[in-house]
């Protein structure tokens, strides 16, 4: 792909894959029920197990989806964090669009 950017559209490329590797690896592990239990029991300890940086930990623990994606968290992996909560995917969309959930549903998805 060329380096030309499509506005407001980060592609998960080399940089994202390298930067987000630990967040994504931690999130991938939540596909295992035993890991989901460990995550729920002591989230910080679980994140430490995957050697997340303090910034990454903060983004995950505060469920700052926008920052997680900015730090290389790929949506398909971090959706497994959302599955534990559970957080609807539209709320993750709204956070990235900088809209509140109701406005996001209406403005972007055309739902009344």
């Amino acid at each position, binding site marked *: *792909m060329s380096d030309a950017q499509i506005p407001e559209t*980060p592609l998960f490329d*080399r940089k994202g894959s390298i930067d987000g590797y630990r967040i994504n690896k931690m999130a991938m592990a939540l596909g*295992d029920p035993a890991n989901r239990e460990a995550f729920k029991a002591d989230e910080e300890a679980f994140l430490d197990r995957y050697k997340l940086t303090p910034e990454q930990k903060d983004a995950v623990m505060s469920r700052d989806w926008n920052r997680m994606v900015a730090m290389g968290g790929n949506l398909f992996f971090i*959706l*497994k964090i959302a599955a534990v909560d559970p957080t609807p995917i539209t709320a*993750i969309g709204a956070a990235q669009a900088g809209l509140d959930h109701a406005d996001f549903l209406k403005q972007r*998805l055309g739902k009344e």
Partner: protein
Amino acid sequence: MAKIIGGVGTSHVPSIGAALDKGIADSPDWKPFFDGYIPGKEWMAEKKPDIAVVIFNDHGNTFFLDRVPTFAVGVADHYDPVDEGYGRRSIPSFEGATDLSWHFVDKLVENHFDPLVCREIEVDHGLQVPMELFFGRPENWPVKVLPIWVNTIQYPIPTPQRCWEMGKVLREAIESFPGDERVVIMGTGGLSHQLQGSRAGFINREADEDWLNNIANNYEKFRDMSREDYVEQFGSEGAELIMWLVMRAAMDDKVDLKMKHYHAPASMTGAGMVVLENL
């Protein structure tokens, strides 16, 4: 020789499966979407294929970033649904069309493709949902499956043109397979959606309609588009539509567009399908 009985393009949005699991397929939000698939299901029941080739992408459920195959082909005798974070869905395991899979792998390599060949692997909603949309929720699936995974997650993803070339090899493999199996090809993904970045929630209804109207007999522009074009028109995750090209390329140059359906949004996605037959 095995026979291609038709080609299907369809969305594989995970919330479709979740709606079925929760029993809300008849809710006002979902009914118009599912109703549009009834003719597709009837078509499939009437055509009675033996094997479904399903072209889809994994969504960070089966493949992690430690190894990312651009193309992977399943040669397993069965494929269980993978736990995507909500627990394993209670749908039947998928029986593998092992012989056709190995034959396809042979043909791919002879034609200078280099696939990852998977002997033991699970499948996510990318394969599950299209099967549910066209075969319902039977006790056992009435077809064996040949899964083809295309990387659409980590860049570089394959070019649309490469997907097209793979479709040509798929056709050659099916038509040279010594058997009388009836094969349906399901290209899946899309339609327009974007889940990441401040353009999240992007849906392009006009582009989606254009795709559904023209993928049958005016496909050249889609075949020739760049990956950037796909991302721009259909959204970053809408670029999954390149996987329909594998199906389309395996069909005749001119086809009969038997049916199409569009509904938006399904969750955050423009969703729909086409059913194609060779003339």
